[in-house]
């Protein structure tokens, strides 16, 4: 057989994934295709930019797996966990474990949902590949935590913690929001807003931080995951272009989704800001610089200028995300510090080199608004654990403790009266999302409310049982048993020695 070109090979291997049903009404098979008001005239026009076929996909993915697992095995065999520069990094990895891994799994479900409900061959094939990618990500991440769990706290009842921890309602509600949207909105939400606009900032700086602190295993997880993202981004970009070009009536609908999901994705990334600015003791890049490069330069000043010709403007509230860049990681770390007594990844006492780095990278905000709080925390870590459970934002579910970037001494909390109840929001961005779809967000569930109404039993200990870990696994890192264990492993390996050169 003559060698096929990429284009003909793709056509040959993806054709007939769609057909015209004769016995069943098309709309019965695809009941959601018109539900969102999206109009598609000629779906055949849409192509996967990389035209990847299944045999190519399998070959490429197998190579990625071989590369990653070779690094993982070497790291495990060589006690890599004891060789990183500071064990507090693992607290950040634990945060990632509950925030991101379930998100990968949800993304796999979401891709299957999109592929099932959008009757366009190329989209079905690209989402099929991506559904497999997301499962792969979830699996290599779990492999990493399984290894860590042999040595460190917090991950031993992973499925339970994953399911029940208050912190995890943040990513869970995010993906539930996308999974309960129509298929085209879900596509824009995840393939475009999440993948194209924000995953860079997740896997590039965080993997670089992992490498900077010496966690080669996690750096490899990040790189292996990210290697699939270029394909996911291509899907999002192509889908966006298709919707905008197929029918002018799609444009305001797409704009509404971009407005919503830009902010929704941005907010879920708040914890990532602390994983870049706080948890690594050797930093690769600051959140502020990463945000400027990946979001401001590449997306707001790059992509959105290209979308202008369609009548698409930058997402609503984008200015707020720029204003917040010098506050974001500090405000989020303060939230994590407030509730560290009930969380399975610990906060930590800031060290002199931390104050120095944060002051240098954030000359306008850190010393003035945040350092006094962290200094005070240092003196009585336990005493400042919050007395109860925080009011969280009715959209993003993060505690309402984000300062107004225009007046940082005040909170940004917004209040809306709806259906006989006062609803609270962390920011104007989340409030605006609620106002568009209040009936959706009033259905939210938040474990603090269930705890307060006594659903888990009368005491805080009952809640830990529900979460799947114990109070000893929470709180502050440098006074924790994890830190002492890490020091012991290092002594055992002789890594505590310093060698003089004469």
């Amino acid at each position, binding site marked *: 057989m003559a060698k096929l070109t990429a284009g003909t090979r793709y056509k040959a291997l993806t054709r007939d994934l769609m057909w015209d049903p004769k016995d069943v009404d098309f709309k019965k098979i695809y009941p959601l295709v018109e539900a969102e008001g999206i109009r598609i005239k000629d779906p055949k026009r849409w192509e996967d930019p990389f035209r990847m076929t299944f045999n190519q996909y399998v070959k490429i993915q197998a190579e990625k797996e071989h590369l990653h697992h070779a690094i993982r095995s070497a790291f495990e065999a060589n006690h890599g966990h004891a060789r990183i520069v500071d064990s507090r990094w693992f607290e950040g990895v634990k945060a990632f474990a509950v925030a991101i891994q379930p998100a990968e799994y949800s993304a796999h479900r979401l891709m299957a949902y999109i592929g099932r409900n959008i009757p366009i061959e190329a989209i079905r094939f690209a989402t099929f590949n991506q559904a497999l990618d997301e499962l792969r990500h979830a699996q290599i991440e779990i492999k990493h935590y399984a290894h860590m769990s042999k040595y460190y706290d917090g991950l031993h009842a992973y499925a339970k913690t994953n399911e029940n921890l208050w912190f995890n309602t943040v990513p869970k509600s995010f993906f539930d929001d996308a999974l309960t949207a129509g298929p085209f909105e879900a596509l824009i939400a995840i393939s475009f807003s999440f993948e194209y606009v924000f995953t860079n900032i997740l896997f590039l700086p965080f993997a670089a931080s992992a490498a900077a602190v010496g966690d080669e295993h996690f750096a490899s997880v990040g790189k292996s995951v990210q290697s699939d993202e270029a394909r996911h981004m291509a899907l999002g970009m192509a889908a966006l272009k298709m919707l905008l070009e197929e029918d002018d009536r799609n444009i305001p609908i797409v704009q509404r989704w971009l407005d919503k999901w830009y902010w929704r994705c941005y907010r879920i990334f708040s914890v990532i800001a602390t994983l870049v600015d706080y948890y690594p003791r050797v930093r690769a890049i600051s959140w502020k610089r990463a945000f400027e490069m990946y979001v401001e330069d590449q997306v707001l000043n790059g992509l959105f200028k290209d979308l202008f010709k369609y009548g698409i403007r930058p997402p609503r509230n984008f200015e707020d995300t720029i204003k917040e860049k010098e506050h974001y990681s500090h405000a989020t770390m303060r939230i994590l510090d407030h509730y560290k007594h009930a969380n399975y990844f610990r906060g930590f006492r800031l060290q002199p080199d931390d104050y120095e780095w944060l002051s240098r990278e954030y000359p306008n905000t850190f010393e003035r608004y945040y350092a006094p709080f962290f200094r005070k925390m240092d003196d009585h870590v336990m005493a400042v654990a919050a007395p109860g*459970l925080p009011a969280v934002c009715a959209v993003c579910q993060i505690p309402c*403790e984000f300062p107004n970037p225009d007046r940082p001494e005040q909170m940004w909390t917004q209040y809306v009266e709806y259906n006989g109840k006062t609803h609270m929001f962390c920011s104007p961005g989340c409030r605006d999302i609620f106002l568009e779809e209040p009936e959706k967000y009033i259905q939210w569930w938040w474990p603090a409310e269930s705890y307060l109404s006594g659903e888990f039993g009368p005491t805080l200990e009952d809640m830990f049982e529900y979460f799947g870990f114990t109070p000893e696994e929470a709180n502050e890192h440098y006074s924790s048993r994890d830190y002492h264990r890490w020091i012991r492993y290092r002594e055992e390996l002789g890594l505590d020695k310093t060698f003089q050169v004469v």
Partner: protein
Amino acid sequence: MFVWVRVTFDDRFLCHQGVRAQPDMTGKQLLDTVIGMWGLPGDRRYRLVRVHPAGSREVDLERTLGENGVRDGDPLDIHAA
């Protein structure tokens, strides 16, 4: 029922915290509960204010939460008098 309470002059806790309450408890009783939870000085005087998007309203400490129109899940601020 529970309410969300924020102690506005305490910079250790910046957002509202969940506090169990009953509609027939007085504003004063709720205030005492919060003073105990936060460990606030008992010799000072405090005001309790219900936060509402249409404008905040002072809670009458002698009357019940129900009589004050405080509902399940309402946010309240405590100020130093």
